[in-house]
């Protein structure tokens, strides 16, 4: 616990803390998805990553389509309110641009895998997966018996990413981090990881108390990066709204590989003004 958070740049933080072959969690449940950090991972051409997110969302579609991933651990892989993630589907269905291994949970299962990871336990317990075919296709779920009642429950193996990346609204000057609104699984994803990095909308002198807010200690982060708009096209409550047209447009952009690649080139790899 002795290395304290420090302010950094996105290119430095991704270079120093994310390596080829790492297991990387980018969390944010619809809200506060760390898109900018994901794009920097793509720009730096990271390879063979095991990517973890409850909802892969467009950011994983982009990472997968650009060939960064060898495996995805997830629990719901759609474009919310729109339809499919075409790049992820093509990787699963046709092995394009490269074969993609998947490990598929339910939300409750993956949530409890993060909880166990954050708590330093090798597994979590839930009354889940019962009667489903998921359990047959997931070696990280097992039956466990209650030593008191004999009830059979599910154990899910902890996830402990090498790196977790999140986006938050604010950091203070010490590097403590505040997020509010839908807080999802970010605390557990950060605490389950060996290293964590956070992009924030801004740095403030003092946190103003907010409803439904969460403060994460500076002790948990290797790097804090000021990245306004870092969760676009998702949103940061109090700073931006979800860019629903982007999500709708993605369906057309991502359906065809060539269109996707040209869009990524223009908008992510060498965007105007970057």
């Amino acid at each position, binding site marked *: 616990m002795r290395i304290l958070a420090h302010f950094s740049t996105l290119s430095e933080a991704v270079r120093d803390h994310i390596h080829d072959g790492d297991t990387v969690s980018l969390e944010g*449940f*619809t*809200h506060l998805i760390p898109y900018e950090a994901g794009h920097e991972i793509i720009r730096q051409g990271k390879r063979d990553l095991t990517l973890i997110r*409850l*909802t892969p969302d467009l950011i994983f579609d982009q990472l997968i389509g650009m060939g960064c991933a060898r495996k995805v651990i*997830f*629990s*719901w*892989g*759609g474009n*919310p*309110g*729109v339809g*499919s*993630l075409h790049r*992820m*589907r093509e990787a*699963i*269905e046709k092995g394009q641009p490269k074969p993609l291994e998947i490990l*598929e*949970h*339910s*939300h*409750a*299962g993956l*949530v*409890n895998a*993060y*909880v166990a990871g954050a708590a330093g336990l090798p597994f979590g317990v*839930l*009354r*889940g*997966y*019962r*009667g*489903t*075919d*998921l359990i047959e*296709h997931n070696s990280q779920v097992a039956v466990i018996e209650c030593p008191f009642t004999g*009830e*059979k429950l599910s154990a899910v193996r902890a996830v402990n990413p090498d790196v977790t990346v999140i986006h938050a609204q604010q950091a203070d000057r010490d590097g403590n981090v505040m997020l509010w*609104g*839908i*807080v*999802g*699984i970010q*605390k*557990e994803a950060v605490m389950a990881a060996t290293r964590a990095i956070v992009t924030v909308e801004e740095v403030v002198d003092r946190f103003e108390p907010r*409803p*439904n807010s*969460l403060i994460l200690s500076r002790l948990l982060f290797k790097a804090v990066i000021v990245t306004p708009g870092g969760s676009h096209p*998702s*949103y940061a*409550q109090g700073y931006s*709204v*979800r860019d*629903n047209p982007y*999500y709708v447009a993605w369906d057309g952009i991502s359906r065809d590989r060539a269109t996707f690649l040209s869009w990524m080139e223009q908008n992510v790899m060498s965007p105007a003004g970057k």
Partner: protein
Amino acid sequence: MTQELTYTADEMMTIAAARLLSNGMFCFVGIGLPSAAANLARATHAPDCVLVYESGTIGTKPSRLPLSIGDGELSETAEVVVSLPEIFNYWLQAGRVDVGFLGAAQIDRFANLNSTVIGPYDQPKIRLPGAGGAPEIATGAREIIVVLRQNTRTFVEKVDFITSMGHLTGGDSRQELGIKTKGPTVVITQLGLLRPDPATKELRLTDLHPGVTLQQVQAATGWNLQIAAELKQTPPPTVQELSALRDIQSRTKNG
């Protein structure tokens, strides 16, 4: 004589779902039709129906329908917003949810649901989004309302993958796994309502929507569908229901 109202199949499904909700019910809601139905109930006969989305927003009162379960308005209008471990463990798993809504790409005669894959898991014909919150909603909520379009691609003899357990192989097979919740108590389609037989747990057609024939329902079902002895007729949408629903949806489009 009142003028005949015109309405879409989706509107009929949404209104039929809303009618099943009552004041004080604690409803676990997903995006799309379930969200529309629960908000319609709130706008009409069940203003104190409590909505929770799996994003952790409890008692939320959106003025328009969210495109995603994480839309900002859900959290801004919520009584409380909790983390995902809390919503799944302390609320859903702990048995606090009265009604959960589920959709699916396929359903079988025992109301088992598939939202994972069409074709073999390892060589999918169509890869669907997957489980999300569904498997634990299916066993954690006291009862489940299923809403989906009925045709021979969705109502199949055997689902390609059980994402969410309904009544498994019928009879007591669900209870034998140690599950105490009721599971799917009703399936709402654009043609009517189906409910499990109390003993066999096989879905039977219990209500027919206005203007729908038994032949149409049978033709849209991939197995030999049983019909309840007392088949009921769904009352058509009322002016109030339709205008409340359209009001919600126009706010959504303009929002």
